């Protein structure tokens, strides 16, 4: 008797589970089709960020609040905070677009055949750096790394090793210490340097009253694009207009975000007061403004984007990316990593975006 009751329960649990699985898969396919047939023109858009919702995404916040996504014919925009595996989220359809960097995306494509492409880049140069304190590590050149204790986050380990290789420094000469994204070990002088973002941790430590030194990866033989926009091959093939509409809204948002002091402040305020208001510990407005300014001056706007428009990736830059990737042990062709066709077409149709 007891036995049969239990068996009955098991059968029911199994039935519920398989029903749930069916429902889940049904959800997956229905949301896909909803994207295409939504009443809001080209459909809703979900964007996976690479980091918490701070001023790093000033352009996206402005594009949303100023209605640029809607203007371009898109529906509701949803932003997902990182850090996560952006490539996985986008490739499995949990987001339509993602912001990542060339190394990460190229890894996903070469190591696991992810059907993804980079379609434009917010940051022309990657913001990675070795952050140190002037009175401790004082790491100004790659040679200064020798004999130092450097905090490296696991996800950035291969990148850090590529940086060493690109500068002919033997891994054995540097002491690598596992570290999170926390800057405390650096400030407490337990480590001499930390893999960081010039636009983020560097400014954060500076705002705590420390005299900081940055050793930029991009300026020391490891240039590659970052906050690069990724989407799937399927989206590119089936919904070219959707892709172009998204790029248009993004470019408009970022042009506003980098439009002088007023733009920096607008983006930073949106991050602090609206999109990132739930972040704990709370974002600091001054630091966010400094970040918004730094990223525009250092990473978004370059001589090339002045000529070709922001988000563009020149042929030279594509080649420089591939060279860096090779240094990181990733062998990939330009066509397998980049698809700049929609962006080129968009800028041809609407040349005012490139100005």
């Amino acid at each position, binding site marked *: 008797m007891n036995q049969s009751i239990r068996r009955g329960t098991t059968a029911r649990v199994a039935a519920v589970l398989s029903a749930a*699985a069916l429902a*889940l898969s049904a959800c997956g396919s229905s949301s896909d089709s909803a994207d295409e047939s939504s009443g809001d023109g080209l459909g809703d858009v979900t964007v996976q960020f690479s980091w918490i919702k701070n001023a790093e995404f000033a352009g996206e916040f402005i594009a949303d609040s100023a209605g640029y996504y809607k203007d371009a014919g898109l529906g509701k925009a949803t932003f997902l905070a990182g850090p996560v595996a952006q490539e996985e989220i986008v490739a499995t359809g949990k987001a339509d677009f993602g912001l990542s960097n060339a190394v990460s995306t190229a890894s996903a494509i070469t*190591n696991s055949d992810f059907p993804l492409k980079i379609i434009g880049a917010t940051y022309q140069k990657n913001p990675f750096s070795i952050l140190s304190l002037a009175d401790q590590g004082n790491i100004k050149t790659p040679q200064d790394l020798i004999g130092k204790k450097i905090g490296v986050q696991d996800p950035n380990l291969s990148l850090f090793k590529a940086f060493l290789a690109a500068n002919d420094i033997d891994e054995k000469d540097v002491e690598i210490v596992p570290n999170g994204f926390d800057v405390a070990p650096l400030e407490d002088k337990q480590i001499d340097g930390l893999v960081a973002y010039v636009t983020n941790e560097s400014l954060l430590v500076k705002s705590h009253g420390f005299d900081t030194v940055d050793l930029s990866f991009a300026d020391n033989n490891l240039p590659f694009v970052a906050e690069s926009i990724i989407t799937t091959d399927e989206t590119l093939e089936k919904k070219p207009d959707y892709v172009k509409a998204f790029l248009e809204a993004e470019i408009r948002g970022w042009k506003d975000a980098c439009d002088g002091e007023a733009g920096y402040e607008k983006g930073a305020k949106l991050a602090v007061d609206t999109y990132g208001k739930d972040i704990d510990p709370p974002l600091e407005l001054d630091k966010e403004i400094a970040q918004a300014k730094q990223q525009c001056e250092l990473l978004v706007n370059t001589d090339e984007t002045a000529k070709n428009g922001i988000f563009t990736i020149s042929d030279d830059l594509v080649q420089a990316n591939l060279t860096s990737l090779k240094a990181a042990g990733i062998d990939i062709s330009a066509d397998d990593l980049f698809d700049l066709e929609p962006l080129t077409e968009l800028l041809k149709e609407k040349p005012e975006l490139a100005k």
Partner: protein
Amino acid sequence: MRVLTVARPLLTILVVLAATIGAWYALVTLTGVSDLTTRLPQDVIAYLFTEDDAAANRAEVLSALGQTVIDAGIGFVAGLTAAFVLATVMVLWSGVEAATMPVVMIVRTVPLVALAPIITLLFGNGFWCVAVMSGIVVLFPALVNIAYGLRSVTPQMHDVVTVYGGSSWDVMRRVAFPTALPSIFAAIRISVPGAITGALIAEYFTTTDSVGKAVNQALALYQYDKLWSLVVVVTLVSVIGYALAQLAETFVLARYGRNAGRA
């Protein structure tokens, strides 16, 4: 009887493997998770044995596994030794139990990942970090088991030793240890997966190439073949370790256990 003693752990391995592989197929196919990130047993076999780069892949996975086995070994020995000594002392002097148990409970109740930064601060991120973290996972269940075994000496046996002028240490040595053998082996068996868990957590905070480290990096680089292979080999080692402990238990208890010589 001999055949049976060897056959039982072997059978355990086979049953566990069959069940795991069955559950693996079922989970991957029923949940409908994207096949971009999931791998099936044949993918792991291809990665480790039949692909062009199989030899290189195998070398990478095995070198990481080797380090993890060493790390788990350190934790296993450290945790069991500590548990054995503590249990013995606790049973001999009951005051010790009142003094040590709260500390053990604290160490055990606070999640290891939360304690880890403190442990790395105190012990650095080398050998001692691994020994302490992996040891903590092993210590508590082993301690409770072994102490229980040592206490299960019957009053009659206790009296026999004391009547002949034996001290409480004699009771311990001549009666309690043999009586506790089944509990000690139970402790050893559950310590195998515990030590591996502890080692994997500790490796997250250390620098050497190991499974704990490699899993994180493989995840960051989207090397899902490698990731699944690492999970598979470390699980296999855990199952084999458990079976070996079971085998040792069967042999030792056949000789020294309660039913020794009766078979």
